[in-house]
């Protein structure tokens, strides 16, 4: 495989980092500050996209920064998988920035400079994780991301956010130090390298029990992926302002967790080792439990954001589920669900935020009849819901379809049932919201007066329309992402 040495990955990571001092120094002038965010976001996206053609040709872009010990360096390597994740994160960052201007100003939040600064830091860490060449670098950015998002989660600085922030860190930082760190060092101890490679880094040093324990340490240790029982930080993190929930807790943070697990399974263990030891089924069982239980809990939640959070927990496990199938179709379905779910779920979160800003309503039971006031928002919500359930014409269908094909390919029919049941549950907890929104009646509604449209401000509505539209476009044109996965995983 051809490798190009280039500084671009580093620049893409650092752009948002460099802009932070500028943001802080222009904290008195919100408009100036916000325009810098867009400049940085645009540069970042351009840098990421400029690498795309090279990657699609099957080449890789690499850059080693600090060789810390043989086989353990701080290094970047852009491959198909990383590229896919970086495109999603960088593009959604810009959309979310527009949204967060509307949201933060609409609610007149305090500490906006702090907010945007840590947001920029978080996105830097996300791109860094996407471009990591080895487990050490991945771990580094994983930890930075955990710490950078803490002030965002605890943004309100009140008692509730303090408790949530504590839980957030306990789960995310605690598991990564207690499980991932020793597992990673043990891998290095055994093999002398942490470099990702499709063949895996182990030759025959591991016995099956050791491999199982190690794999479980990674799967549970990357708690950002929300595998049960280490999931409860995600609903707790919903106290954060909605832009944070939308970008970080539907896209960046949680997907970094999933991405890390995918990387470990495909790059550290390697598909062959996992299927030799038959470990795919173990992971798949864990993921299935999370999928089903997550969906069931989502059904019982009345607060919209919490329902979305549990839905996210269950959807994240789809991705792990797909990869654990260890068949080409399953891998494809799982990884592309990173993209599809990202656009679907961020739309839903944007809608939840828009509803909150426009009406102050957080609970689903208060939302009947609201679709008439906010038709655009609810239409977008419908599309996002379709994406998450996995119905055409949304991108979510493509990933679900491939996942189901994957179970057939891997001859795991029981697990196909899990997918189908879960899709039903998804439909149950999303579609009633839309239905009641459009056709239900709110308490204050008067039949004689025609309902006036009262959407939230444009900064909120435009982003959610964009992501909803992209969600549909992806159904028709998933080709770029499919190719990236094929290049990245060699399938």
């Amino acid at each position, binding site marked *: 495989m051809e490798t190009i040495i280039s500084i671009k990955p580093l620049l893409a990571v650092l752009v948002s980092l460099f802009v932070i001092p500028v943001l802080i120094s222009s904290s008195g002038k919100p408009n100036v500050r916000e325009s810098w965010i867009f400049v940085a976001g645009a540069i970042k996206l351009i840098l990421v996209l400029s690498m795309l053609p090279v990657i699609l040709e099957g080449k890789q872009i690499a850059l080693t920064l*600090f*060789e*810390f010990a043989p086989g353990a360096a701080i290094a970047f390597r852009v491959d198909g998988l990383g590229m896919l994740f970086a495109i999603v994160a960088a593009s959604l960052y810009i959309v979310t920035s527009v949204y967060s201007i509307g949201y933060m100003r609409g609610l007149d939040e305090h500490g906006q400079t702090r907010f945007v600064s840590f947001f920029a830091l978080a996105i830097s860490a996300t791109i860094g994780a996407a471009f990591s060449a080895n487990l050490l670098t991945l771990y580094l950015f994983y930890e930075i991301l955990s710490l950078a998002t803490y002030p965002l989660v*605890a943004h309100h600085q009140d008692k509730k956010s303090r408790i949530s922030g504590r839980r957030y*860190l306990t789960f995310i930082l605690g598991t990564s130090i*207690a499980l991932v760190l020793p597992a990673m*060092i*043990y891998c290095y101890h055994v093999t002398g390298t942490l470099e990702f490679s499709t063949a895996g880094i182990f030759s025959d040093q591991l016995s099956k029990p050791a491999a199982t324990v190690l794999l479980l340490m990674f799967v549970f240790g990357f708690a950002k992926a929300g595998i049960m029982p280490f999931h409860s930080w995600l609903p707790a993190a919903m106290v954060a302002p909605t832009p944070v929930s939308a970008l970080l807790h539907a896209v960046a943070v949680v997907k970094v967790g999933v991405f890390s697990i995918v990387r470990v399974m495909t790059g550290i263990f390697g598909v062959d080792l996992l299927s030799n030891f038959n470990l795919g089924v173990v992971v798949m069982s864990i993921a299935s439990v999370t999928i089903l239980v997550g969906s069931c809990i989502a059904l019982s939640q009345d607060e919209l954001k919490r329902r979305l959070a549990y839905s996210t927990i269950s959807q994240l496990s789809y991705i792990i589920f797909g990869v654990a199938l260890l068949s080409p179709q399953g891998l494809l379905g799982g990884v592309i669900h990173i993209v599809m779910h990202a656009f679907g779920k961020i739309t839903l979160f944007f809608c939840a935020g828009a509803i909150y800003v426009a009406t102050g309503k957080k609970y689903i039971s208060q939302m009947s009849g609201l679709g008439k006031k906010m038709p655009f928002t609810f239409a977008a919500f419908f599309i996002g819901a379709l994406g998450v359930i996995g119905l055409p014409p949304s991108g979510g269908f493509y990933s679900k379809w491939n996942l189901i094909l994957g179970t057939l390919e891997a001859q795991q029919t029981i697990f196909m049932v899990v997918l189908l049941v879960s899709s039903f549950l998804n439909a149950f907890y999303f579609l009633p919201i839309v239905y009641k929104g459009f056709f239900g009646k709110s308490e204050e509604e008067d039949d004689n007066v025609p309902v006036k449209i009262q959407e939230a401000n444009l900064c909120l509505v435009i982003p959610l329309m964009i992501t909803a539209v992209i969600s549909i476009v992806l159904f028709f044109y998933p080709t770029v992402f499919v190719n990236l996965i094929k290049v990245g995983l060699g399938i």
Partner: protein
Amino acid sequence: MDNYPALIVIAPLLAALLAGLAVWIKERLSYPIALMGLAVSTFSAFKVLMQVIDSGTIQYKMAGWTPPMGIEYRIDLLNAMVLLLVSSIAFLNLLASYKSVEIETNDRAGSFYTIYLLFVTGLLGVTATGDLFNLYVLIEITSLTSYAMVALGDRDRGPLASLNYVFIGVIGASFYLLGVGYLYLKTGSLNMLDVANILSGIHGSSTVLVAFILMMIGIWIKMALFPMHVWLPNAYTYSPVAFARIVAPLMTKVMVYVMIRLLITVFGFDYVFETLNLADAVVWLATIAVLAGGVMALSQKNLKKMLTYIIVCEIGYMVGGAWLGNQLGMTGAILHILNDALMTFALFLAVGNMVYKLKTVDLIDLKGLFGKMPWTMAGFVLAAFSIIGVPPTCGFFSKWYLILGAFEAGAYHFAGALIISSLICAVLFFKVFEICFFEPMPEEHGHVDSHSHVIIEEAPVSMLIVSGFVSLSLIVVGLYSGTIVNTIILPFLK
């Protein structure tokens, strides 16, 4: 000029004398004199390090007397590194100290600087010397000066804390001296290399064993290895901040250096890890030290005291690493000398800034500090992350080597203790962060709604710059730890 090795130690000594004189002539002169002395020392240490990296070990014979008769300074990669560390931290701390010394020592600034310089001289001498008895004398110079310094601090508790420190310090030093006596009895020499040569023939001797154990216990008392740590928290908490900032990072670390020097150079790896069967027990002791230090830190209500218990915990890291008996563990221990000195320094610099503004640093006093002192807190947060071991700060990389060494030695309990202590430190520091971040400032500062309009009241710029510089250096040192390991530590261990 080949006298750099001597200059490292002599410059601060001379400066101490001059600063002492200046007290009678013009007290204001003592600060610039001290600054000059340490600047020269730091520069020389840098030169020596470069020289050692280029051309290997330097043997500097005091006044031209050849060993084993004369006293020799023997500077290899290890102590060249520690020398630079000690002198630069002493220099930087002095830069940050001017204002806080004036406040804290009321009108005795001149004597403060004199004792400060003598303390640094002692530390540098301990690091540079190649003679066992000389080491004892220099250790006592550092101890004596720190007794005096601790007494300069808190008026109510300082003298008593200091006196307890004296008692335990004397026991430690005496044990060491006794051990040296036994070693002399057997070898008839005090020069480290000479002793090592003679020892290699008499590994089985019980006199050597007694000497070894006595010296180790003496050094452990001096470095505050659990359960011999009881003097440390009080002594460091009640000393003046400007002194706590330097004694906390340096004193214990230099003692760890002495231990490693004894293990490697004097007694030798073969003796310690093959003839003796102590390594397992010591690693267990270190494991307990790591955990106990962490747990005791959890129960503290004063920030300064909490940090002193973290030092006890970190001592366990280094002792355990050094006694794992493999190259990785030793690399980790040596790297951690450097890293821990830097991060403790960064923490105490931040605490110094807080003390300057708040006077007391009980945890409840820290409310709303993120808004009030954002730059100080930024430095504090970085240093805390380094203690927790978050990459890319340097604390992560030494922990990496230590855990790797523990795996290699099969000491899984030690690896476990390191991980658990990371978690404990995370809890500790986030407990502090929560207080600083969530709880609004007390009423007397006049803001009920403290979130929106906080007035920034920072420490003086000189303190902030040093604090920021050191905190950033944690990341830089972390990123270049590969280089440090490859150019300094591995060649030394070969």
